[in-house]
């Protein structure tokens, strides 16, 4: 039997950096599952007006089934999910989460793992570390943060990882020489990046310039759906017309209209929510479809992508 939703209680909320809060979630009516390093859960947040569903990396020990922990950065300019978690969620509240899913697992065949975290992008690596240590894997963590906003867990990471840890606080002028991270690396080194898109792009570009093969670079970009121009979805089979407002994703609009679309990451990565497009021009914003598929315009990832045309007819 598959489990779509797990009810959890918020057992603790801790401010772990000026803009980051950590939430401890306890199970209510069913045990939690162990998970693989790099996994995330999708948290449903029910506001008066809408339902937010955001994916957050699990930062607890992958084997710990007594509780899950997530850490969320407050994003004042966003569609509201993180703000809701920071302002409306209190200890004792009930939330619904999905079972863990993983789009960012470590490459266990790698001979060396270089982890590059930007700000709250430290979160998926928190669940990597126990398993990397248990396997006695060769790894190092480079943590880029701004101490006035982020930098969660930096002190404990520095203490427990020793020489395998390097922190760079840009608020005190410390910069990471990313190009130098690629120099003198042995074969079998893999790089993992989690952070803002600008960091991911910078690391990818510098890696390419250094001749590092693209398949040695692994990343998880925060790609929450970005707002856009309102448009209408037309369901080809029923003719139903669903309006998508500027702040809402296509997937959220479909869900609000009770049109079920299978989905997993809600960040344009996993490909689960793919819908066939019959008519209309797509504004592709996902990382799943290839360039050719995007050009063909026959498939849309409604979790992040939108329409350029006023209408998008989808064949579901």
């Amino acid at each position: 039997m598959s489990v779509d939703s797990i009810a959890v209680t918020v057992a603790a909320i801790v401010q772990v950096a000026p803009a980051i809060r950590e939430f401890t979630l306890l199970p209510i009516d069913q045990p939690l599952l162990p998970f693989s390093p790099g996994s995330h859960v999708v948290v449903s947040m029910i506001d008066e007006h809408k339902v937010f569903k955001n994916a957050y990396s699990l930062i607890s020990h992958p084997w710990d089934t007594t509780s899950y922990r997530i850490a969320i950065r407050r994003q004042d300019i966003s569609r509201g999910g993180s703000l809701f978690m920071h302002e409306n969620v209190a200890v004792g509240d009930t939330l619904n989460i999905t079972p863990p899913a993983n789009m960012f697992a470590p490459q266990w065949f790698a001979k060396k793992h270089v982890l590059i975290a930007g700000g709250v992008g430290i979160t998926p690596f928190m669940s990597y570390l126990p398993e990397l240590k248990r396997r006695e894997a060769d790894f190092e963590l480079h943590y880029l943060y701004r101490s006035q906003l982020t930098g969660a867990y930096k002190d404990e990471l520095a203490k427990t990882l020793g020489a395998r840890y390097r922190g760079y606080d840009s608020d005190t002028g410390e910069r990471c020489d990313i190009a130098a991270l690629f120099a003198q690396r042995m074969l079998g080194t893999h790089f993992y990046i989690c952070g803002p898109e600008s960091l991911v792009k910078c690391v990818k570009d510098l890696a390419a310039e250094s001749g590092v093969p693209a398949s040695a670079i692994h990343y998880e970009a925060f790609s929450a759906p970005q707002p856009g121009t309102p448009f209408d979805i037309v369901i080809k089979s029923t003719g139903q017309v669903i309006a998508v407002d500027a702040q809402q994703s296509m997937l959220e609009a479909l869900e609000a209209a009770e049109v079920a679309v299978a989905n997993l990451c809600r960040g344009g990565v996993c490909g689960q929510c793919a819908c066939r497009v019959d008519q209309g021009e797509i504004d592709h914003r996902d990382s799943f479809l290839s360039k050719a598929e995007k050009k063909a315009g026959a498939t849309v990832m409604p979790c992040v992508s939108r329409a350029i045309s006023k209408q998008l007819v989808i064949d579901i």
Partner: protein
Amino acid sequence: MQPDTFFEVKSRPVYQPIKKRNPSLQHVFIVAGEMPEDMATTYRHCDNTKRTLILVSDSEKAKKTIAEKASLLSLSATVYVAGDESFIWFVSELLTAKGMLPEQIKLCAPVEQYRTVYCCHCYHFSTGVTHSPATCAGCQRLLAVTDHFSRKSGAYLGYQVNAEDPADIPETQELS
């Protein structure tokens, strides 16, 4: 009955002409036999301070050389391999075990059309096979040579063609 005609076999490698991997800072050419033209062109296009040519006589020599020189390969290296099909995949496996990724290993189309065939009955590898059915050099069974290719072993799958009826022997075909 020819079961292979019912579905498309996707495991048979398709070789593209090799090209220089431009961002790479180290280009290593491993050749058993003659260097094919596309590799020679690629070799000429590489800066002579960044290229190395390794000539070997067989797989065992390649294994020894790679064991000795793997520590000199950088993360940005590209290795170009030419030889017979079983050789190039053997070298590819060795390099993969050292941590090289698929885009760093460029295999030249084998010049010869002969195949190494893995007998699924006695597990023997017969080399230099040009026709199907072919007699297994290990157990003497008559094997249908399929297009199912194993990159791990650099060989095509062979199975006994006349197991049900020893007299039912299909016409011999030249392998392409």
